[in-house]
Structure formats: structure tokens, C-alpha cells
């Protein structure tokens, strides 16, 4: 895990992605096009040094809804995750919703919170 990263930095990078409506935490508006959201769910294991707590790590997820093959948007999300979380993220699920035609990708990341 990177020691410089922060939730705010990830949020900012994700919000700067073009053509995506971004909602923080819970999405109460139903996605109707390119739509992303981010939420922090869980306090992961701590980084400890000499039995003293050094950093708090958090686990969260980014949910991205796209219509069609919006691979540039997906690449931008992956790039933001790679930049801030370095290797501590993965694509947890990818599902197509036949009723809406949306593709839902769920990325899970771990991040140090300061």
C-alpha cells in the first residue's frame, strides 16, 4: 500500500473523469448513463510498527455503470486506482443488466486513511 495515498485524492481523481456523473457513498439516483460511485466499507488490517499503530487501512469499492463499451472511462478509473492505491485494488465483479443495458463494474481497493 502506498503511504501517500488518501481517500480524498482518489475521490478527486475519479471526479475529474469526463462524461461520468459521480455520486459519493450511496447512490440514491438511479444511473441512467455513465455513472460512478465510491464507498468506504471496512477498516482493514493496520500497518503496525513496533506494536504501535502507524496507518489505518480502509477497504472500499468503486462502482461504475457504463452504457456500451466505454473502455476509456474504465481505463481512467483503473488508472486512478493504480495511481493512488498502487497494487491494492482489483476488479471484483462485472455484470450486464439486460433490463437497462448498463454494464456494472465493481472495483475493490484498499487505502491508507490519515
Amino acid at each position: 500500500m502506498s503511504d501517500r495515498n488518501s481517500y480524498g485524492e482518489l475521490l478527486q481523481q475519479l471526479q475529474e473523469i469526463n462524461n461520468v456523473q459521480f455520486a459519493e457513498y450511496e447512490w440514491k439516483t438511479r444511473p441512467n448513463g455513465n455513472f460512478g460511485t465510491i464507498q468506504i466499507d471496512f477498516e482493514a488490517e493496520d500497518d503496525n510498527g513496533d506494536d504501535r499503530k502507524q496507518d489505518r487501512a480502509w477497504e472500499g469499492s468503486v462502482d461504475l455503470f457504463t452504457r456500451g463499451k466505454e473502455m476509456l472511462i474504465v481505463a481512467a478509473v483503473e488508472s486512478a486506482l493504480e495511481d493512488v492505491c498502487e497494487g491494492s485494488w482489483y476488479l471484483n465483479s462485472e455484470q450486464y443488466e439486460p433490463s437497462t443495458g448498463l454494464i456494472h463494474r465493481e472495483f475493490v481497493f484498499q487505502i491508507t486513511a490519515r
Partner: protein
Amino acid sequence: MAMTIKTDGLDRLGQILAQLENKAQEVASGALYEGAGIVADALNAGIRSIRTESFKYAPEGTTRLPSPQEKAALERKVGIAKFRKNGSEVDTIIGISYDSGYTQIAGKQKSVAVIARSINSGTSFMRKQPVFRLAKNKSQNAAKAAIVEKAEKMLDEIING
């Protein structure tokens, strides 16, 4: 000058090793049972914590939470799968499998596995509550410790009678 070296206890050691080979699956199953119980408890607690809302139709353009009936279906169907055994390898699955069947909600047959997936990952109409991933995260260290402790205890019983 000839020298005789004699060791005692090799017979006993041989017996123990033979026993270990025979009992490896029993030890692995016993230890896994302990760990699986801890993960299943965490998952049950997670499912009980799912927030619900009663609605007839979610208002246009907004997302919804699961209904109490959907939550109840998960509570009924969550479980530990039968242990799969292959020599000393034993594994199981905890949660809701695709064989969990269907439940009747508002006059419609709905797959319990699909309900679980919709709640855990979220959809364009349902806000996510990732209880399965969080239950795994919260319980995995405790489960690993319990598995090791149980296995050591069972091996100790075999070796020391």
C-alpha cells in the same frame, strides 16, 4: 572394536506417522469445521444487519434498498456447503450457492442467489450492501487462527494419545 548403537522409539514414531496419514482428513475436516463456523457466524450477523425498506414501487429515478422478504430469503438460505474431501484436502463454501433455489416475492419467483448478488454488489436500481465481502474480511483472521489451533490440538491428541 565393534560398536552397537541402539535407538528406542522408532517403532512408536512409525506408528504415529502411519496414524497421521490415516487421520489427516479427519484433522483437516475438524479444523475446517471450526473455521467455517466463525465465517458463517460473521456472515449471519452481516445478513441480519442488511437495511431494508418496504415499498410497492421504488419512485421513478431512485434506487431502493432490499425488501424485508428479500432479506428473509437470504437468512433462510445461507449456510455451509457439504465438505468436499480429496485425501488430506478438505474445502467448503460458505454463503448462498446457485443451488439455493427460488423464493416467492410479491407473486414472482426470484432466484435467491441473484437477490444475494444484487444486495452484495448493488445494481442500477438497488444500493449495495457488501455484507459477504465484509464478513469474509472481518472473520478471516479469526478463522485462520481457529483452524490452526484446532488442528494443533487434534494432532497433539494423536501424538500423545
